[in-house]
């Protein structure tokens, strides 16, 4: 047995470690090195000479950075809290109750994923900028004194909540659907009320999913730059990631300071991951135990309608309003609206005409699609295997694996993009400038989501299922294929779809690594954005969303599963 174990160790852990080190650790190391130097470590210029603390001193002595840290933590904290509440509520509604319009609510809960945060910010600026936002125009022309202002701390928290709820939703929904209903049944048979059951049985069992998604979402909010750049910076409210973006935007870019600031975020994440580990390992959260999986549907009675209303309210705010704003932006020649009743004047197809005749846009759409596919497949399989090793084995070294897989989340995409540029440009394996380097970068970048998503699913599958298969004589591989994978399929499929969507939206890593042949949709949109062509951006956003929706629908038909599980 010991010999077999040793063999497994070599055959599984070592290649995984090597792959993840190459994908993640090596670029991060160049980043760490860069933060201690005054000159970027371009090429293989990895010498240890001239190490200095100057970058850190500057970062820590800048008062603005402390304000930025404070603002970021507050906004991320409140944003996470509201996302968890909203996401869990919607997940519970769709997974466990008889609320009407269930499918619609489920679809809209993940709708915000289809919009990159840049487009979401554009949509909401159109809707709620203090003087010319559509909502404010409506108030003004109705004679009402209310105004909303998206360019504020409240605005940032609002957008955070809207755009990160889907992650919480997906994790919790998947957990609730996979849970063994007999546990709750037992509680109810013993006389507990619906509420009590929820509190004492359901909630604790779904807690690891909530926690995992909360931590993930918190870290995302800490590191996203588009939202605070567009909403908070103009109001002179500093945030960490947008400050980082400013360092990179100066001429010449202050990369070394940016990487020092990035290291700060890295330390915070590591702390959070360790914390999550500690909490999750305290108890057993096994719930999928191989019995029939028919879930109890709770009858809400008269509360169905207020509940449905809350779901529909979310749809309006998260999907309908932003899409309306994008449509208006995309089909009006210019955006000056003297009175709200004249909102549909000045419509035209100039943006559409431009986009249709812009050859790079066509290339970009095709590139984005198939790179998304490649990322979903390569990443999906890789993460599943990694998650299996971390959560389902006790091989030595799996903690390290876990930690490595979480690393990318701490580092803002832009900084990571530069790290990849530095790290991979001199490697003689001819990756630079090809599409594959971008796929690899996406796979590396999305490993936190991917591994966590697969992990959450795996944690809930009881070991006795595997053990019974093994007892019947199945090899480990066969067990994996015949027992684990089918059970994990909903979670696996969700995670692959999530990977696909995220990689199509991904921008910050793509910016540094693309070449004309490998240009992607998000880069085209960002370029138009910087050029003030908001009409064109809106139109491409519509194209992007339609494509993503199309893929989801096809995936649902083909795989017979839905993202709501």
């Amino acid at each position, binding site marked *: 047995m010991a010999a077999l174990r040793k063999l497994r160790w070599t055959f599984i852990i070592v290649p995984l470690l090597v792959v993840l080190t190459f994908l993640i650790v090596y670029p991060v190391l160049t980043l760490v090195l860069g933060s201690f130097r005054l000159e*970027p470590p*371009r*090429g293989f210029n990895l010498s240890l000479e001239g190490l200095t603390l100057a970058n850190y001193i500057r970062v820590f002595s800048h008062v*603005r950075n402390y304000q930025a840290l404070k603002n970021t933590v507050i906004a991320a904290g409140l944003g996470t809290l509201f996302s968890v509440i909203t996401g869990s509520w919607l997940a519970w509604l769709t997974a466990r109750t008889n609320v009407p319009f269930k499918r619609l609510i489920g679809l809209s809960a993940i709708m915000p994923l289809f919009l990159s945060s840049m487009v979401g910010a554009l949509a909401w600026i159109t809707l709620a*900028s203090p*003087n*010319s936002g559509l909502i404010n125009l409506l108030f003004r022309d109705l004679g009402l004194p209310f105004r909303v202002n998206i360019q504020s701390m409240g605005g940032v928290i609002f957008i955070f909540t809207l755009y990160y709820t889907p992650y919480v939703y997906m994790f919790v929904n998947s957990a609730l659907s996979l849970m063994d209903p007999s546990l709750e049944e037992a509680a109810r048979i013993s006389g507990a009320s619906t509420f009590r059951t929820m509190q004492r049985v359901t909630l604790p069992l779904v807690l690891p999913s909530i926690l995992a998604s909360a931590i993930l979402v918190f870290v995302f909010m800490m590191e996203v730059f588009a939202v605070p750049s567009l909403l908070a910076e*103009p109001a*002179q409210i*500093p945030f960490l990631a947008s400050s980082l973006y*400013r360092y*990179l*935007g*100066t*001429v*010449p*870019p202050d*990369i070394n300071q940016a990487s020092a600031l990035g290291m700060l975020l890295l330390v915070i994440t590591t702390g959070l991951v360790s914390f999550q580990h500690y909490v999750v390992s305290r108890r057993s959260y096994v719930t999928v135990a191989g019995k029939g999986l028919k879930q109890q549907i709770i009858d809400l009675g008269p509360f169905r309608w207020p509940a449905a209303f809350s779901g529909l309210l979310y749809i309006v705010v998260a999907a309908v309003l932003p899409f309306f704003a994008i449509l208006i932006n995309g089909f009006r020649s*210019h*955006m*000056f*609206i*003297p009175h709200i009743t004249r909102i549909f004047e000045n419509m035209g197809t*100039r943006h559409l*005409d*431009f986009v249709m*005749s*812009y*050859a*790079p846009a*066509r*290339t970009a759409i095709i590139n984005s*699609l*198939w790179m998304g*596919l490649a990322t979903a497949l390569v990443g999906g399989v890789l993460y599943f295997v990694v998650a299996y090793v971390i959560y389902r084995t006790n091989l030595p070294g799996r903690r390290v694996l876990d930690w490595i897989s979480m690393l990318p989340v701490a580092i803002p995409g832009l900084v990571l993009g*530069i790290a990849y*540029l*530095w790290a991979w440009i*001199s490697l003689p394996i001819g990756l*630079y*400038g090809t599409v594959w380097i971008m796929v690899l970068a996406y796979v590396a970048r999305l490993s936190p989501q991917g591994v966590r998503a697969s992990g959450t699913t795996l944690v809930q599958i009881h070991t006795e299922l595997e053990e019974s298969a093994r007892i019947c004589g199945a090899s480990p591989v066969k067990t994996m294929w015949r027992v684990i994978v089918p059970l994990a399929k909903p979670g696996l499929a969700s995670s692959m779809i999530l990977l696909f969507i995220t990689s199509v939206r991904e921008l910050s890593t793509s*910016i*540094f690594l693309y*070449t*004309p*042949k490998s*240009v992607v949709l998000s880069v*085209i949109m960002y*370029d*138009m954005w*910087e*050029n*003030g*062509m*908001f009409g*064109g951006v809106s139109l491409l956003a519509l194209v992007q969303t339609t494509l993503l929706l199309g893929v989801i629908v*096809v995936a649902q*038909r*083909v795989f*017979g599963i839905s993202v709501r599980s």
Partner: protein
Amino acid sequence: MRRWSKVVSSLLVVALLAGCGGSASQPGAAGPGDSAAGGATVTESNEVIVDGEVVATKELVAAAEQEGTVTIYTSQAASDEQMVMDAFMKAFPKISVQIVRQGGGKLYEKFATEFRAGQHEADVILFSDLALMEEVVKMGAVAEHIPPSDDKYAPEVKKQGIYYTVTMPTMYFIYNHELIKPEEAPKTWHDLLDPKWKGKIGMTPAGIGGTAWTLAYFHRKELGKEYWEKLAAQEPVQYTGGAGLAESVARGELPIGILPDVTDFQVRVKQGAPITAVFPTEGAPVVLYTIAVAKNAPHPNAARLLMNWYLSPAGQKAIANVRGGYSARDDLPEPEGKPAKSTVKLYVPNTEEIISFHDEWVEEWNQVFNYR
């Protein structure tokens, strides 16, 4: 089994689509807003003429066509650059152009990293910030080349044989004429200091890039440091880019915006937003966008041809039609929607000062405007 065949067929469809995907730029693909760039004609002395001016020798063109492709690294918006390059490809259909676009500092980072690592991808480089072009020259990453139109460019707008100004965005201000009546509108930099405009002016911070910095330099150098202080007292709203500011003014979010003229061209001229442009009488500073051939360019002949064309009347007309900025040449008509160059006071800043004063003055600007 049926399910798997569905998967396979879906994948096949996607693969087919990918296979049919076109490459980045089709030679001869005309986009909207196509300029009046004509085709090339050859004279008896073996010179190639486009739009009435010599652009290259026959040998250069033949060598360039042999290379067949050229890559330009540019800080101008890719969609804009694409339209300009479409005009080039119409004149030289056998050469296809690949555009790599990145904002200022990031473009520099990409180019410098590649150069140092020996990965030469760029043929032609176009920077919106003169300081970055100077850095690149210092690095030894620029090749020497004198275009045929060299004598049409004054010494202030070029470094002879090294880089040349390809377009000259001008810093001025605009206002929304649905919100402000033309009689009441500001007409000079000093007019902006009127208390009635407090909180109603948008601008970009000096440290953001070449255009904003050039304006800050001009204000302080020509109007004195008090101008900064008085403008700061107007509590202007800081935008991270001119384009976003132009859009804001067009929408009516802010009535006045101080920005480079190329950022409002699309929205003011092409889309018909209610915007009026003002060239202040004290002077409007210009920014030099410069172009050069990269050293060790993979396609050196095509690179030189492209640069020659860009600086010729054909190229200058193409870019004026897309971005609306003045040409650095004095012998060409003004862009659409602009007053004749001779009727406005354009200010060309001193190159050495623009570069050497940058860090110190930007720091002071940040303090005066309380912008950290």
